[in-house]
């Protein structure tokens, strides 16, 4: 690397403020990813190396290309200051180009802008989406759990949960332990959003911060988890939700429903005794129901697991297997399940996501719902003026 650059005079441009211009800028950022690649020089036709990767200063993440880089390369995680950097635009997003005029020098992580600074915009949960970063968000921890995962040879703990404000809720995962507790109100900064299973998810890492706040205006966990049912059309318009409730009637049953066989390792359904990942396996019998729920405004597919399917059907897995022994036709079981549930009114809570096939609900609870008929009838009579 070249000699240290005197950074006292020009000011660093925040990565979120980068605009493609002719003027050269000075930036500061941490190397998030980097790889060495080659290109063919147009003048002499020779292959030359260059570095390409992502830089982040907590306000945004930007792609950079470094022509004629130092022979020893740079390491992921290093904080760099670069002077005389060119800003280009690629597919509507700014990119950095380090050319022969650019001076690059290491900098201290302490020089990075504070992720919790007052100049960082405070966002509402409903407005978070896509690949947002460089924001602060306030919310209440509604749910929290830890999970151990293996990364390479290393065991790491990830913290997963749900954060809610009055505008909505968003799932989060954290690789660092912020000692969060359910019910706490926090202001999170330095987080970024990624789409996971068709829903935005908040990701926290070692650069993120979590400050405890008063949060009196934030909803309590039980309010979020016992939200009133909304129409399926509304939930669909909102693109689903982390904690939704809906009420509707079973109008259909999608295959595969009823008795299914699952791979003992990955729990995925096996077809013909073959798991798509683990090959030939001894399938484990299980019950499932893919119910189509309709409330007159739209419909949703509800994927019910064994327990809920048994409850709605009134038939246990053991009973289903014994029926299968009497009449060895699994489609018959599916028909029985449909006949037992068609037209039943259900209230469903859980997570919902929307894709090309419509709304899919991953239920946390499914309850048969009966209507207070006398009250309803009185209301209808009043509307009809009798």
């Amino acid at each position, binding site marked *: 690397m070249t000699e240290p650059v005197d950074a006292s005079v020009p000011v660093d441009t925040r990565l979120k403020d980068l605009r493609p211009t002719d003027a050269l800028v000075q930036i500061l950022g941490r190397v998030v990813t980097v790889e060495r690649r080659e290109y063919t020089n147009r003048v002499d036709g020779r292959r030359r190396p260059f570095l390409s990767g992502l830089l982040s200063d907590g306000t945004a993440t930007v792609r950079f290309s470094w022509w004629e880089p130092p022979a020893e390369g740079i390491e992921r995680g290093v904080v760099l200051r670069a002077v005389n950097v060119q800003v280009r635009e690629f597919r509507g997003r700014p990119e950095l180009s380090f050319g022969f005029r650019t001076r690059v020098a290491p900098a201290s992580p302490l020089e990075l802008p504070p992720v919790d600074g007052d100049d960082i915009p405070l966002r509402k949960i409903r407005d978070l989406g896509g690949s947002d970063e460089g924001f602060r968000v306030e919310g209440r921890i509604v749910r929290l759990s830890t999970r151990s995962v293996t990364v390479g040879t290393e065991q790491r703990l990830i913290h997963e949960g749900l954060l809610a404000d009055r505008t909505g809720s968003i799932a989060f995962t954290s690789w660092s332990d912020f000692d969060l507790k359910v019910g706490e109100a926090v202001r999170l900064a330095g987080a970024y959003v990624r789409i996971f299973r068709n829903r935005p998810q908040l990701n926290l890492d070692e650069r993120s911060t979590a400050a405890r706040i008063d949060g009196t205006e934030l909803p309590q966990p039980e309010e979020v988890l016992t939200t009133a049912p909304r129409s399926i059309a509304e939930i669909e318009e909102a693109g689903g939700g982390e904690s939704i409730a809906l009420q509707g009637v079973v*109008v259909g049953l999608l295959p595969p429903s009823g008795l299914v066989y699952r791979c003992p390792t990955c729990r995925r359904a096996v077809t013909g005794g073959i798991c798509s990942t683990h090959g030939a396996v001894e399938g484990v019998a299980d019950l499932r129901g893919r119910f189509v729920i*309709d409330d007159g405004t739209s*419909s949703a597919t509800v994927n019910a697991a064994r327990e809920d399917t048994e409850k709605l059907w009134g038939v246990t897995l053991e009973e289903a297997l014994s029926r299968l022994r009497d009449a060895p036709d699994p489609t018959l079981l599916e028909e029985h399940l449909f006949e037992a549930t068609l*037209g039943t009114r259900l209230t469903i809570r859980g997570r919902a996501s929307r894709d090309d096939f419509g709304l899919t609900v991953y239920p946390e609870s499914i309850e048969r719902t009966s209507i207070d008929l006398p009250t309803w009838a009185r209301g*209808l009579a009043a509307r009809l003026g009798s």
Partner: protein
Amino acid sequence: MALREVAWRVTAHEILSALQEERGTGERAATYLLSPYGARMNRVMIAGNLSAPESIGRDPAQPFWRARLADPTGTVAVTAGGFQPRAMAQLRAGSAPRPALVVGKLHLYRGNDGTGYVSIRAEAVRTLDDEPMRTALADELAQSLDRLDLVERLMREPMVPDATLRSEGIAPVWLRAARESIRRYPSIDRPAFRGTLKQLLPVIEGRAAAPSSAPSIPPSVRVTRIEPPAPKHREAPSASERANESAFLDVMDELADGSMDGYADYRELRQRLAERGLSEDAAETILARLQDDGVVEEPIMGKLRRASALTDG
């Protein structure tokens, strides 16, 4: 990818009053019936008393069954054939009239005189106990009133933007249906529908039983309606078009007479017509016109017959 069609909660009267059709375009397009109540129906859900079914199929290899579903506002035909084996089995399961819930798709057949016959092609049928029956009717009544309210509001305030209405939680499919309903039935007497719907109340309140099936399906239903403001004007067919039409029908009849099931196979028909110098496009155009005029029907994809064959049933 087309989304699943919503199941409209409707009464028999609403189904019988929906005689305006909207044909979708493109591959596997859905067809909708517009009702004056503000529904744009492809699939419906309806509760009522279901009569014992009768077989109306002429070919034992292609069974087709029909029953009548009666609610306090009217009676509508429910059919199921070999393409809906599950629904057909459920339809056939009842030998006596029973309270039932039916989910199915609407089918409009228009006779030569322009009279419409609507039936429900069942996807699923289930016998209901008393309380679920009353609940289903209450659901129908509540949503029918909601839709009438919406239609009447849009007639009063036609300029309210969709975004405002959607922010109030009104479903996009309801909005579209209500606006289309106003366009198709601009001057129908909607307040009268509330009187019709009132007949559901005694059953919902448990003061009266649901009516059992009327002895027969009403042969026709007439609804006071005004044609849409700017109907597409169709040129009277020219002499050569008429000649092609009659050639089409001649060949179709010939094929139908010679076939086992009484239907003319459309592919075969097109081939024969091609031999006579009629292009596929021309055949398609003629078929569309004959179907619109109610001369020919295609009850099964690719199988054609004279539409009058059904009216004797």
